[in-house]
Structures are given as C-alpha cells and as structure tokens.
C-alpha cells in the first residue's frame, strides 16, 4: 500500500501523526515528571522566572487540583455539584487555624504537608456528611443541596468569632511553595486517574450513562457515588489549604458562589470526563485571567463570552470525554490488542 491518499497529507493529519508519535513514547511521562519536580525546586532557588510568574504557577497547580477533583463528580459522574468552593474553604480554614493558632511557629515548614492533609481529611468528612443525604435523591437535587451547603459553610465561618468572623484570618504564613504545589497536584491527578480506571471508576462512568442500568449490572451505585464525592471533596480541601497559604489571608467572602463558578468554568472549558481536559482547562483559565488583567472590568465580559463561544462550537469542552493516551493505564490501552494477538497465536497451529 504505497499510495498515500491526497487528504492524508493535510496539515491536520500530519499533526495528528506527529502527536500520536509523541503519545506512543510513554517513557516520556515519568521523565517529564522528574524534570518538572526538579524545576519546581530550581525555579524559586535560582529565580529562573520572576516572583509574579512563580505565583501564577502555584495558582495553576491549585486550579488544576480543583478542576480535576470537580471533574470527577461533574464530568465523570455527570452530577452537578456547585459546592466545591465550600469544601475548599473547609480545607483552607482548618489549615489556617492550625498555622496561626495551634502549631508552633518553628516547626511550621515541616508540618505543612500534615496541615494540608488535615484540611483535606476534614473536607472529605464534610463531603461525606453532605453526600449521605443528597445522594438519596437523583440528579438536579445535588445542585440544590450543594448550593445550600455552600451558603451554610459561608455563614458558619462568618459567625464564628474565633476564626475572625466576616473579617477572616489574616497573616497566614506563606508556606505553599512551588515543590509542594507540584507534589499535591501530581498526587491529585494520579489518585483520581487511578480511581477512574478501576472498577469503581467504571461504575462512576456508568452512573453518568444510565444509573438504573448501572445498578442492575451489579454496580453498587450508592457506594460508588459516595466514594467519588468524598475523594473530590478531599482534594478540594487540599487545594483550599494550599490556597490559604499562598494568599496568606482568607475570609468567608473568598469562597462564595463566584469561586465555585470559576471552578465549574474550568471544568467545562477543559472538557468533562477528562484528566487532560482538567489540566488544560485549569491552566488556560488561570493564564487567560492574568493576560487579560489589563482590560480591567472588560475581562469579566470577555471571559464569559469566550465560554459561550466554546459551548456553541465545542459543547463538551476542549477535551470532552477524550484522554491523552499517556494517562490511560497500559492494560486499558492495549488489553484488547494483546488478547487478539494471543488468540491469533493459539489459532495458528490449529489451522
């Protein structure tokens, strides 16, 4: 088959071939991770980029964690949670209280990972409490329950004087560093990706496609939904803890419905049901907001407009329901091919 069809040489197919070639080199992923981790140390050490860009990099990491974790519930599972900023605020407050009031100052840099973990765990617990009643009902109810939750959390923090009431907590130590952000971002992506490519993850997908059929195919839908929601809240809490220690000031107003909307935009921009989409969505949105900063108020007109255009031309987002092959476990990627090859090999002597 030497003849190449004419349309085979358009720029589109050429790029696709090049892209597939890159994706076939799976060893590149761990190499990139090591390089990225090394860079995350080198950048602040040698000031490779200025402080402002370093800050943006940290925000990109935090937003990618938020986007990936919300995508688990809104994209993979097809529910609609708007309470992500609420779980984020739980993580932020827990860790901020630990930093400013409970832990000894001298040990703070060493205890920071435990603080983040604590923020995530408490957020996960709160997620469980929210999920238990709300998943007894179906569909749209979750949006309403999570919206109510968001309002409750906000007014709780506003009314507890010990955490500053509406004024919030100022003067949090800046403990979020680039390496820690990198570590937590990779951990979030890795764990959620692992979960998605397991029997529970397939259960999550089947709930999105058809919940009743899923239950009838032996998937314990209630358990799977709880797991997905708790994992999602855990990483929202982690992101909140990182966020509090880079902003150095939190108040209930930071975690309102606007913050939730931001995360939703990142999810639907990047693409539902896709890890790669979450990374792309979180990154593009963070960077765009910064690039468009000189426009001032017009930024808030342009960004939603971009979203409307995207929804018209790509309703599932940039990567909707597709995935980089790097992120798919090998057995899922080539399992069927291996099976066919094995079968051909065993059939050959017989015939």
């Amino acid at each position, binding site marked *: 088959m030497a003849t190449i069809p004419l349309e085979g040489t358009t720029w589109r197919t050429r790029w696709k071939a090049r892209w597939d070639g890159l994706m076939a080199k799976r060893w590149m992923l761990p190499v990139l991770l090591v390089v990225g981790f090394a860079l995350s140390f080198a950048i602040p050490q040698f000031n490779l980029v200025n402080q402002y860009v370093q800050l943006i990099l940290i925000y990109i990491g935090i937003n990618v964690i938020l986007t990936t974790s919300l995508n688990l519930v809104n994209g993979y599972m097809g529910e609609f949670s708007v309470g992500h900023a609420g779980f984020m605020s739980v993580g932020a407050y827990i860790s901020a209280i630990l930093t400013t009031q409970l832990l000894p100052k001298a040990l703070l840099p060493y205890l920071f990972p435990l603080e983040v973990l604590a923020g995530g765990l408490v957020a996960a617990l709160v997620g469980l409490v929210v999920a238990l009643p709300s998943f007894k009902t179906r569909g749209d109810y979750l949006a309403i329950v999570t919206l109510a939750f968001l309002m409750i959390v906000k007014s709780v923090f506003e009314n507890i004087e010990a955490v500053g009431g509406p004024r919030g907590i100022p003067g949090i130590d800046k403990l979020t560093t680039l390496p820690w952000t990198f570590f937590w971002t990779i951990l979030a992506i890795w764990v959620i990706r692992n979960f998605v490519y397991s029997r529970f993850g397939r259960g999550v997908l089947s709930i999105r496609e058809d919940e009743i059929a899923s239950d009838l195919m032996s998937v314990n839908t209630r358990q799977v939904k709880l797991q997905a929601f708790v994992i999602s809240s855990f990483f929202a809490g982690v992101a909140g803890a990182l966020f509090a220690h880079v902003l150095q000031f939190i108040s209930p107003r930071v975690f309102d419905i606007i913050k939730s909307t931001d995360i939703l935009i990142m999810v639907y921009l990047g693409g539902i049901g896709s890890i790669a989409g979450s990374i792309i969505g979180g990154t593009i949105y963070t960077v765009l907001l910064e690039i468009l900063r000189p426009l001032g108020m017009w930024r808030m007109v342009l960004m939603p407009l971009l979203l409307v255009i995207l929804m018209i031309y790509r309703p599932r987002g940039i990567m909707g329901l597709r995935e980089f092959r790097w992120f798919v476990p090998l057995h899922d990627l080539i*399992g*069927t091919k291996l*099976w066919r090859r094995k079968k051909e090999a065993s059939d050959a002597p017989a015939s």
Partner: protein
Amino acid sequence: MLLQAEHVTHYFGGLCAVSDFNLNLEHGELVAIIGPNGAGKTTIFNLITGVYHATQGSIRLGDVELVGKTSNEITALGIARTFQNIRLFKELSVIDNVRIAQYGQMKYGTWEAMFHLGGYQTEENRSIENAMNLLEVFKLDSVADESSKNLPYGMQRRLEIARALATHPKVLLLDEPAAGMNPSEIGQLMDFIRWIRKEFDLTIILIEHQMRLVMGICERINVLDFGATIATGVPKEIQNNPRVLEAYLGEGAEV
C-alpha cells in the same frame, strides 16, 4: 424451586399495576410472560430486579427474599436482565460495557483502586481477558474498542445480553428481545436463546409480543391483562384459551 413469586401486588399511587402475580420457576426452564401493552409485564421484571419494591407479596430466589433488596444486591445474587428499549452505556466502549457488569465479581477495594496496589493489576488483566472471551462468544470481539452507540441495532441487542451474562446470572430476564427484528432475524434469535440457555446453564423469563418466538421456544406461558394473570399453561393451552383471545382480540372474537 429456583425463583418463586407469591401473591406479588404492586400499586402506582392508587393504580394497581400488578395484582396477585404468582410464578414458580424450576432450574433450566424457559417461561414467557405475554399480554397486551400496559398489562404490567415490564413492571414484573422491575419488581423482580428491585427497581420497584412490591407493595405486597414475596419474591424468593432459592431461599433468599428479594423484596426490599437493592438492584445491585439482587443482580449479585444471580438475576440479570435486558431492557425493552436498549439501555447500553452509549458513550463507553463495548468492552467497558461488559467490564462494568463485572463490578460484583471483582474484589479489590477502594484503596487498592486509588493507588493501583494489591490485587488491582491481576484482577484488571483477568477482567479484560474474561470480557474479551465473552465478547468472542457473541461475535463482538472485533468491535471491542468501538463506542457502543456506533454499533448496528442487532449488535447492540447482542451486547446487551452479553453484558447481562457478564454478571454471571442464574436467571436471565429478557424484555422483548425480538423488538424491531424481521422474521429471519427472529428465527436466528430463537436458536440463539436456546443456545445461551444451554451454554450458560440459564433459567430464562421472556417478555415478548412475537408469538412465533413465544410459541416456538417457551415451555410455559403466563398471560397478563391489566395486571392480573388471566391464564397460565403450555403454549397449546394458551393458544386455545378463550380469555386470552378476548384480551388480545376483544369479546366475542372467533379464530
């Protein structure tokens, strides 16, 4: 007695959808439930599989009471079904459709799933292997990586049965398997149903409007009308039962 339904009654609000339904199913039997549209046939399937919980009565699989159990528990006990209007996981690949149905048989827990530890890898490999072997039996192995929504209608029907069998059922409920098929396809389907019954050691309950199929392969028939059982018996008896003719053709009809 494998599956036993006794005095099963179900109301939707004030409407009686199924009244006093009884069924005794021996291992290996092939029984049909027929009746005009809206007679409550699919409701019975929904009651057996736990989609609805019977208002009164009991349904037992062996010695286990099924009323009150959730669908996934009932499926794990060994009852699987297909749907009247195909309900595949459309956006997912053919093999994933089958692998989702293996959920109940896979043993690894949440932590192993989150960190890909322990039994994860071996069980995933075995899951792919089993799924492909099952798909091969149904001649679907060549399309394993396709989205299930892209399959032609006949293949989607086959995949739905394959998916149900992946849960390792003892009892299979088929809800109008011949819907939308032409006469020659129905002939193939009859052979196919006979074959899976033998091959997978199944007991089958079938809802169907195609009388050729019902009369051709079923050993016993249950006729429903307005939720009530109006006749039971072997195909020959049903064909000549005046109450059945009345339900289908109206009062005073002659054949």
